[in-house]
Structures are given as structure tokens and as C-alpha cells.
């Protein structure tokens, strides 16, 4: 019984962390069709922003939930203005340029911070289920993932901001004719995606440790999740996170964590062969 609870918590945590890791990418790819291969490095920047602000005495929660997203959003806007907006509509070139940006960011951070692992310890301590002990922080991640999904859906569907953003992505000329500045909307959407990436990096920093090259571990997982999800941004994010998170966590229990990763990625490749449009290309059509 205790084991069942532990397995359940771990599976939920795996799903939640996939949601958190992929949310920023889901916004940028789902809305703007920009493949941001620097997503992992945005997470890395968020993690460093959190760690550095904790070091100078900012409260941990403020650092993770406010400082990290805001500072990464600022960097995202800068990069969008200088590089990425020149490449809209050229998907492969965007992919290559953002990969270049990711190497560039790794290089810059390595030069400044050094190639060593920094870390913050997970707050809140542990709680026990029978004979097992679980870090309370896993529950925080699960809660954040739920709040994030609901908030994202609410912003996109029920606020005028979300309406403007979705409208601009569908038809920038029409939005422009209606008095909206599309380039501003693009910047804002990219900033939102970057902020979510930064938040993810900061939230996961206590669990993973922070190195300049940490992004590489997340970017493939995030991409597979977003692409496996299909056209609907939030529904796709949740459904594919649920599928892949469960697969990887169960494989981890059965074998090793490495095998869990492999099962996730291999499962995703097979799934894309069966459902080339992703999960929401077949099911939950018309959802967001």
C-alpha cells in the first residue's frame, strides 16, 4: 500500500516535471511555430538567476518564482529582437540559429561562472509514507504544474491578451489592420515562453544541480513532449506529459533511471510513427 502511494507520487512528479519543463517550449512552438533549441539554456539561465539571487540574500521562493522568470523573459525579449525575429517562417534556419544561441549561452555562462556544479538544497524537508520518505518539494512541483496548466489555459482562452496573441499568430496582417502591433505581440509571446522556461529551470534547480551544460538534458525531453502533444497547446502538453511521464517513471522503477529516459524517447519515436500529428491531432480535437 505504502509502495503504491510512493509509486503514484513519483509518477505524478514525473508528469508534473515534464509539464513544467515543456510549458515554455509549448508556448513558443505552439503559438509561434518557432523551434527554440535554446530552451534548455533558458532553463539554465533561470536556474543561475535563482541561485545567484539566493546567494545575495533574496528569499528562495521569490528568487524561484519571480526573479528567475522575469530575468529570463528580459533575455528572451533581447534575443527575439536581435536574432529570432529575422527568421520567422524559416523553421530550419530558426532551429539552427537557436542552436547557435544555445552554444553561445553555454559559452558565456561557462566563461563567467566556471564549469562547476552549483546547487541549492531542496526546501521543506521530507515527509514519510509508512517506511518510505519523500521530499515535500516533489509536491510543490506537482502543485506548480497544475497551477501552470490552468493559468496558461485561462490566459489564452479567457483574457483579451490571449485572444490578441492567438489572433495575431493566425493572421498577423488582419491583427495589424485592427490596430494591433504584431511585432510587439511576437515579443510578448516569446517573453512568456522564456519566462516559463526560466521558471522551470529555477524550480528544478534543487532537484538536478546547476551546470552551464544542464540544458542538454532537458531539451530533447521537452521537444518530444511538445511535438507528441500535437497542435493543442495546453491539452497536448498535459496529455503527452501524462503519457511520457508515466512511461519513463514506470521504466525507471522496473530498471534504472537511464532506462527510464530511453523508454521515454523510444516510446515517443514509436508514438510519432503511429500518430504523426501528435496526440491532440487525433484525440481532443479543437481543444486548446
Amino acid at each position, binding site marked *: 500500500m505504502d509502495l503504491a502511494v510512493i509509486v503514484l507520487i513519483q509518477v505524478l512528479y514525473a508528469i508534473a516535471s515534464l509539464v513544467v519543463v515543456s510549458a515554455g517550449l509549448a508556448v513558443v512552438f505552439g503559438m509561434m511555430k518557432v*523551434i527554440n533549441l535554446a530552451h534548455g539554456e533558458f532553463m539554465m539561465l533561470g536556474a543561475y538567476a535563482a541561485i545567484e539571487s539566493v546567494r545575495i540574500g533574496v528569499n528562495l521562493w521569490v528568487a524561484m518564482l519571480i526573479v528567475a522568470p522575469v530575468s529570463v523573459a528580459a533575455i528572451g525579449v533581447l534575443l527575439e529582437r536581435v*536574432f529570432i525575429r*529575422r*527568421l520567422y517562417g524559416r*523553421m*530550419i*534556419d530558426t*532551429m*539552427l*540559429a537557436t*542552436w*547557435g*544561441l*544555445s*552554444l*553561445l*549561452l*553555454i*559559452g*558565456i555562462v*561557462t*566563461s563567467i561562472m566556471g564549469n562547476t556544479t552549483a546547487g541549492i538544497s531542496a526546501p521543506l524537508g521530507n515527509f514519510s509514507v509508512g517506511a518510505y520518505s519523500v521530499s515535500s518539494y516533489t509536491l510543490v512541483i506537482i502543485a506548480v504544474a497544475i497551477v501552470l496548466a490552468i493559468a496558461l489555459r485561462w490566459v489564452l482562452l479567457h483574457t483579451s491578451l490571449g485572444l490578441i496573441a492567438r489572433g495575431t499568430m493566425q493572421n498577423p496582417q488582419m491583427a495589424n489592420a485592427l490596430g494591433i502591433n504584431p511585432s510587439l505581440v511576437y515579443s510578448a509571446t516569446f517573453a512568456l515562453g522564456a519566462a516559463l522556461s526560466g521558471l522551470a529551470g529555477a524550480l528544478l534547480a534543487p532537484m538536478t544541480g546547476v551546470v552551464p551544460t544542464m540544458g*542538454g538534458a532537458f531539451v*530533447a525531453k521537452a*521537444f*518530444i513532449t511538445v*511535438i507528441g502533444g500535437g497542435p493543442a497547446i495546453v491539452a497536448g502538453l498535459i496529455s503527452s506529459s501524462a503519457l511520457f511521464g508515466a512511461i519513463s517513471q514506470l521504466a525507471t522503477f522496473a530498471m*534504472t533511471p*537511464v532506462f527510464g*529516459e*530511453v523508454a521515454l*524517447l*523510444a516510446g*515517443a*519515436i*514509436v508514438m*510519432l*510513427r503511429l500518430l*504523426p500529428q501528435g496526440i491532440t491531432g487525433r484525440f481532443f480535437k479543437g481543444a486548446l
Partner: protein
Amino acid sequence: MSTPLPDRHASIPVPGALERFAHSWKSAALTLAVGVVLLVALPFALDDFALVQATVYAVMALLAVSLGFVWGFGGILCFGQSAFFGLGAYTYAIAVTNLGDSTVPLLLSIVLPAAFAAVLGYLIFYGRLSDVYMGVITLTVTLILFNVVNSTAGPEWTIGKAPLGGFNGIPNIAPLNMPGNVDDVIGPRGMFELSVGALLAVYLLLRALLAVKLGRVIVACKENEQRVALLGYDSRAHKLFAFVLAAAIAGLAGCLFANWGAFTSPTIFGLAQSAQIIIWVIVGGLGTLVGPIVGCVAIQWLTTQIGTQQAINSNLVLGAILVVFVLMVPKGIVPSAGQLGVRMLKALRGGRRDVAAVSTQAAVPRTRSAAPAADHEASHSAPNASHEETA
């Protein structure tokens, strides 16, 4: 069947002239001649250390050519070319440790990555996944291989007599030997000649492939997959073939690389390696076969230079180069340099012609070369298609 151009046009370098030169046998012969001269002359000009350095340039150039072919001519952006490279290296290392004689391992290191690419390519092309998915899936496969091989450090991970070694890699890989005689191993100079020879052979093979129908259909798949399919060709099979061929070349490069250092480790599957290959190709020039070689040598030299000092991080420089080339020199060095040369020639001969004359001349050869090709394809494919249906 096409009428020869009037002399007046032939002597004048027009924008089409560069393209025609790049597709002519003259450019292939020129490249081969340069290659053969290097192959013969470098062992005399360089000492052993420099020769070993030159060998790794040739091996990596082979890897660059494999991506240059599948991306530039097949239109398939493979983010995981290093996966096949690494598979080739590991296949050779494991097989040669088990078998002793290196002939079969050499063949295996080509066949196994090709077979792996066939399975992967089947999933991608026959699932009709788009370019973007292609990039992400190949990237993912590379990461899977890296993770798996990286975690095989324990003594329980052995294949036959060969321990996989996990993140430590496999040291002391036996070098290639003459077929049948295990003691007659290849020296540094032989290794250099073999690597450059393999590079030239692969270059020639690919040029020949691109000149025959199979290669033309592969290029056509890149230009317009739907039209190719409507003409009666199986675009999926052609793309799969290009993908598998590139994987085989990358596998061969991996085998040579394992030979070169007598060592292989999981980092050759890594993202950094994949990124480097793409940077070589895009810097050298997409859509050429010489470009990737030039780009590879230039970038390799640059990273070696960066490695000798501490102030600037190599990731930083590589990232900056990639961004700058994508945004500002999307054609790469070789085509841009060619264009620059043509433009300078034109400026030198300038005065005599006006712009309009140049632009009409530019249009003439292009339509002339395109039209017969289209006729040719159409007249061939139509009977083929009907034949297949009746058969």
C-alpha cells in the same frame, strides 16, 4: 541534345556559369586532382605528428561530407549524424576486440550504422514526418545512444570480450591490419593515405551518384517531393536510400576515427559533436560536396587554436559562428567565395556590357538546362509508371 552555347556567351562568366561549373566534371576533376596531390605530397611535407593531425582532419571531413550529402542534396537535416559516426566507432572497437582480424569489423562498422539508419529512416520517412520532426527525432536518438552508452560502465556490460566501459570509453583499440594478417598493422602514414583515399573515393562516388538518375531523383525529392511522387517515383524510398548511404559513410568515418586515436568514448555521440558537424556544413556551404570539407578543416583548425588558450570558450565561438552564418552568410563559404570570384571577374571585364545583357544571359542557360532535364524525366517516368501498374 541541347545546342551548344554561342562562343560569345561561353567566354563570359554569368551567374549561371558558377552553377554550371559546380555541376560539371571539371570541378570534380579539379577537386580530385587537388586531393591526390595532397595525398601524395603531404606525407613528404609533414612530420609524423602533423601527419596524424592531418589524418583526423580527413576523417572528420568524411563525416562532414556525409551530412553535406544528406542535407544539401537530400534535403534531410539530420541532427544526429554523430549517432552513426559513434555507432561506427563502437562497432569497430567491439568487433575488432572480439575477432582480431580487422577486415570484418571494418565492414561491420559500415553495415551496422546503415542498418540502424534504415530502421530509423523507415519510421521517419514512411511515417511522413516533416523536417522538424526529423530534426527532433534524430537529436533524440543521439541522446538515447549517449545516455545508454554512458551508463555501461560496470563490468557486467561486455559484448563478447569487449567491455563497453561506459563514460570511460574503450581504450587500446587494435588498428586496422592487412586482410588475413593480424600482425601487418597500418602505420601513421598508411592511416593518412587510407583516410584521404576514403575521402576522395566517397567524394567521387557521391559525384557519380548525383550525375545518374538515382541521384537526380534524390535531389528532386528535396526540391518538390509531391511532384516527384506524381511523376511516379517513390520519394520515401529515395530519401531512405540517401539517409542510409549517409549513415554508411558516417559509420566508415567512425571506424577510421576509432583507428586514429585507438580510443572511443560516449562523447562522440554527444550534442556538441552533432552541433559541430552541422556547423562544418553550414559554414562550408550547403548544397556542395567540397564546402563541408572546407568548413570542417577551417572549423577544426579554429577549435584547435581556441583549445590552446583559456580566455575564450570554444562553445562561445562555435555558437557565434553558427548564428552569424545562419543570419548573414546562409550559403556558406564555398558558394559565396565562388560568387565573389565571378563578380570580381565580371567587374574586371565590366565596362563592355550593361546590366540587362547580363540578366538575360543568366536566364538563358538556366531554362535551357532545366527544360531538357524535365522532358527527359517525364518521358522516362511515364512508361515506367504504366509498366509498373500493368505488371
